[in-house]
């Protein structure tokens, strides 16, 4: 199973906690997925409703590791303050670092991301940067002290899958020993299997499960796809070729 910052997690599936039809559906999706990590966020508490406390009890009951995010942050300062609040709230130094640079695509701001990562690593955070598949950005984030990278498959919430397989393969090949998670954009289990076949260590998704007609069934589907992809990667896939090659021996064929 994947190891992030020296900690082995129970599954290559990291699952978000937003947009489920109900807390019960969320809990069932986690149960059937076997996800080892739940992503969470910090938000304002609206006038005494105590929704945050109820949510905290729900998450604590899942028995998974939590990965707080800085979702919605558009500046380094905002992301750092959010990360500090999240560390205190969730009692973890893990942080999924989002510094958004474009509102329409939710594309990361690479410059702000590197700066925020550098500052947070200096404060002892274990940073999981939500990034594009850019090689140079990856290099800078590693220099900043990140030990895990989280390239997007596609923009958040789109379900478009792995939009740039070339870029993702290149990233995987350039940094073979860095744990990498495909974060965002997955819509189907087959896309998650493809990510694992490429050699990624895990995937992080939310909408594809939460917005499925049957979230728990979709969660289990993703879990099985990840296992299939992981097995295939480890088994050494055959090299593709352009020309056909008969799988049935030609020798001994009857003359008819």
């Amino acid at each position, binding site marked *: 199973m994947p190891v992030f910052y020296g900690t082995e997690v129970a599954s290559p599936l990291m699952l*978000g*906690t*937003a*947009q*489920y039809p109900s807390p019960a559906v969320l809990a069932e999706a986690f149960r059937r997925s076997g996800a080892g990590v739940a*992503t*969470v*966020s*910090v*938000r*304002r*508490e*609206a006038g*005494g409703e*105590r*929704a*945050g*406390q109820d*949510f*905290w009890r729900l*998450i604590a009951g899942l028995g998974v590791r939590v990965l*707080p*995010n800085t*979702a919605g942050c558009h500046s380094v*300062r*905002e992301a750092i*303050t959010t990360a*500090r*609040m*999240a560390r*205190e*709230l*969730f009692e973890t130094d893990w942080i999924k670092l989002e510094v958004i640079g474009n509102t329409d695509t939710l594309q990361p701001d690479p410059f702000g991301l590197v700066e925020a990562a550098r500052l947070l690593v200096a404060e002892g955070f274990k940073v999981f940067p939500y990034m594009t598949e850019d090689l140079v950005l990856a290099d800078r984030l590693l220099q900043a002290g990140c030990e895990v990278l989280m390239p997007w498959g596609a923009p*958040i919430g789109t379900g478009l899958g792995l939009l740039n397989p070339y870029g993702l393969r290149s990233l995987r090949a350039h940094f073979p020993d860095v744990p990498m998670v495909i974060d965002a954009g997955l819509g189907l289990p087959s896309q998650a299997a493809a990510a694992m076949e490429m050699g990624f260590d895990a995937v992080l*998704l*939310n*909408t594809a499960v*939460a917005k499925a007609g049957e979230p728990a069934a979709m969660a289990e589907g993703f879990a099985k796809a990840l296992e299939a992809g992981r097995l295939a990667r480890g088994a050494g896939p055959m090299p593709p070729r352009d020309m056909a090659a008969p799988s049935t021996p030609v020798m001994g064929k009857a003359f008819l």
Partner: protein
Amino acid sequence: MKITVNGETRETASKTLGALLLELGHGDARVATAVNEAFVPAAARDGLHLAAGDRVEIVTPRQGG
């Protein structure tokens, strides 16, 4: 004095952030705080004196992806 709490202007008699949290019913709740965009750890809340115009953020655990 007038301060802003989670984006809403309100009047408070609380002199510290810790007192404000009690006033707002967050005394025993799992919350994190920031004042004027700077994180304030739980241990520093009672020592943080509020001033008119301060912008206070109080956040809790929530769903995220």
